[in-house]
């Protein structure tokens, strides 16, 4: 509490000066984010003929998404995959990230090297990562199945991206491979922020190993956990490059890797429907509102949780 007040005092400056500092960013934000956002919202309420705006049709574009094929089946299918990507990322990517962060925090030496290594894929374009993995997993030329066959695990060799049961998990895995460095860095920073006194006091009181982690370290990581969860949620809901590289715009095989952003892309840019601007805008609006709404609720819940913990 004390430190917060101090920050508040330091940050105080004349209103006009503050405004001047904020203005350039606000201007850019308005032109490139708020304006397109508002136009997309308005587009979603109109009928369209190509780029020619037609009549105001209220919520018809939205209703269409829920009531007419292919949207009425594609929407729940794609949405369900987004949720799966989120759950998968929380389970594998973020817990692995936490594990790595804890280990790296302990080893000290070589920490930088490993941190850089684990974070490296995160610097490569996800589209490149996606194509790379689809080559690695190719049933014809991919080295992964080849290695499995050569070490006698022939029954494990599998058309990973061609089987609807494994394709979406391949997307979860590839995403995790690329992004694991991100939660690792955030948790690492949070671990570094835990004062030594707290840690030492806990040890003096007899909390060591798992118990110390459960009672001391983990609760102190909660703010970082919250941030990671929200960012993971947004990332999973907006997933596009990796699913696109792995399954193309239709989410092959047979829609097994379809996600909301792919559906939006198909509707907006590959549709034969002349009214596609309206339909795709309403789809984008829905996705935005969902992400925005859930993120706000999550944020609120987390800050309440933090308050309860720290008083």
């Amino acid at each position, binding site marked *: 509490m004390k430190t917060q007040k101090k920050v508040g005092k330091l940050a105080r400056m004349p209103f006009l000066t503050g405004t001047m500092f904020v203005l350039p960013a606000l201007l850019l934000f308005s032109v490139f984010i708020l304006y397109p956002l508002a136009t*997309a919202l308005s*587009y979603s309420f109109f009928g369209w003929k*190509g*780029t020619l705006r037609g009549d105001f049709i209220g919520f018809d574009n939205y209703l269409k998404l829920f009531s007419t094929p292919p949207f009425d089946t594609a929407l729940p299918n794609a949405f369900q995959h987004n949720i799966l990507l989120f759950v998968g990322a929380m389970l594998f990517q973020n817990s692995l990230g936490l594990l790595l962060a804890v280990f790296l925090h302990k080893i000290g030496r070589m920490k930088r090297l490993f941190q850089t290594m684990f974070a490296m894929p995160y610097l490569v374009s996800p589209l490149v990562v996606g194509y790379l993995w689809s080559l690695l997993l*190719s049933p014809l030329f991919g080295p992964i199945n080849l290695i499995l066959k050569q070490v006698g695990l022939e029954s494990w060799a599998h058309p990973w991206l061609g089987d609807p049961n494994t394709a979406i998990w391949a997307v979860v895995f590839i995403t995790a491979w690329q992004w694991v460095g991100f939660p690792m860095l955030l948790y690492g920073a949070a671990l570094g922020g835990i004062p030594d006194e707290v840690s030492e006091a806990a040890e003096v009181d007899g909390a060591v190993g798992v118990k110390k982690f459960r009672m001391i370290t983990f609760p102190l990581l909660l703010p970082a956990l919250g941030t990671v969860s929200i960012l993971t949620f947004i990332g999973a809901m907006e997933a596009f490059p990796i699913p696109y590289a792995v399954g193309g715009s*239709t989410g092959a095989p*047979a829609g097994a890797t379809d996600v909301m*952003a792919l559906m939006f892309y198909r509707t907006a840019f590959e549709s*034969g429907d002349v009214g596609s601007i309206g339909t795709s805008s309403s789809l984008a609006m829905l996705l*935005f509102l969902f992400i925005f709404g859930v993120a706000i609720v999550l944020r609120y819940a987390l800050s309440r949780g933090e308050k309860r913990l720290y008083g």
Partner: protein
Amino acid sequence: MRKRISALGLIGVAALILSGCAPAAQDSADTGTDSGSGGDTSSETVEEVTLSVWSWRTEDVEKYNRIFDVYEEANPGVTVEFEAFLNTEYNQILATGLEGSDGPDLAMVRAYGGVQALIEAGQLLAVDDLVDTSDVEQSLLAAATGINDGQLYGVPFATQVLQVFYNKGIFDEVGVTEPTTWDEFLEVNQAIEDAGYTPMALGAKDAWMLPIFHEIVGAARFGGPEFREELLAGTKDFTDPDYVASIEIVNQMTDFMVDDVVGIPYADSQVQFISGTAAQFPGGSFELGNFQTQAPDMDLGVYLVPPPPGSVSDKPLAAGWADGSFSINANTPNQDAAVDLLNWMASPEFGQLFADEIKQFSAIKGVEYTDPVMKEIGELFAAGPTQYINLVDMRYGDPTGSTVIGEGIQRMFLGDDTPEGVAQALQEGISTWFTPGS
């Protein structure tokens, strides 16, 4: 502090997804197309006109420049500026350009369903009475015709044809020749398989490839042009037993492909054929250039799949379609000059130049091809022409026919659907926007 940053970042990140879908201005452009307003471009004095032509063929800029040099020479005062944009972004660039004042005079437009948005928005000039299309392959004019008003909005420039490409070297080694009957076709494939080659390369992971494959092996079975006529008239639909049987044939063909073919991407199937591990590649004529560059030593042959038993058509069929058209911007200030140029693009002279320079099939009748494989493809198409129904007729709404049948065939290959189910899904999918007889 951190809280505020993450809240702001959250709005920012989430808003990004929306910024992708913002077309430019939305004012309804005045689409006055009265040709009298073009001004008096009389031919007394040579007037300087510069016509800009937009395209998505970035790889063909020099070739098109050479083609238009011929026109410029014959028409003093006219300069044609050919500009190409990235294929994947072309639709957006063109739609924006046609709305504003800095758009092109003429432009390449997509075919069939792909051009309807521009037509509906009134951005293209109707050319029924302005351009003589008698030298254009008549069946292809549908590619540039408004589905609602039936007017012509351009001249198709390129066509594609579907057939089986094969490696003559492997055929000789195995001791087989081009099949002429269905039984021979099965025997040839079996012999190739027994010799240790993959008979057919198919990238079934890319759903767009599957309706193409269906046309290649199944068009004769469901009866190509006759079926199309009845489908459009509403006397038959996709659940017709002959159409279902044609999908069943697609299913039988998996015997001649690698296992788990749904896991094979299109690019890998090309490698299979180019590297000589697969003997045949069922595909479109657009593959030809790539095959010839990647495998210059391969002796390439083409044939049409013979009609399977029970076929409606008694001869093999080659499905074709127009790849795109040239159209005139409805708002061009140089309308007369643009119409003159488009008339030339509908002439045999342009068709021959196009075939010679671009090395693709022209939409103009009577064009001669020097490449022996192209020549053969041209002959196959002339002997048994039909149209690729799911592209030509089923791309005017959402979902497109090719999307539905592509995904359906994937499900069928995976054992999750039947030929009847695929046909049913196709019929239901297109029924959301397609009304026969209209």
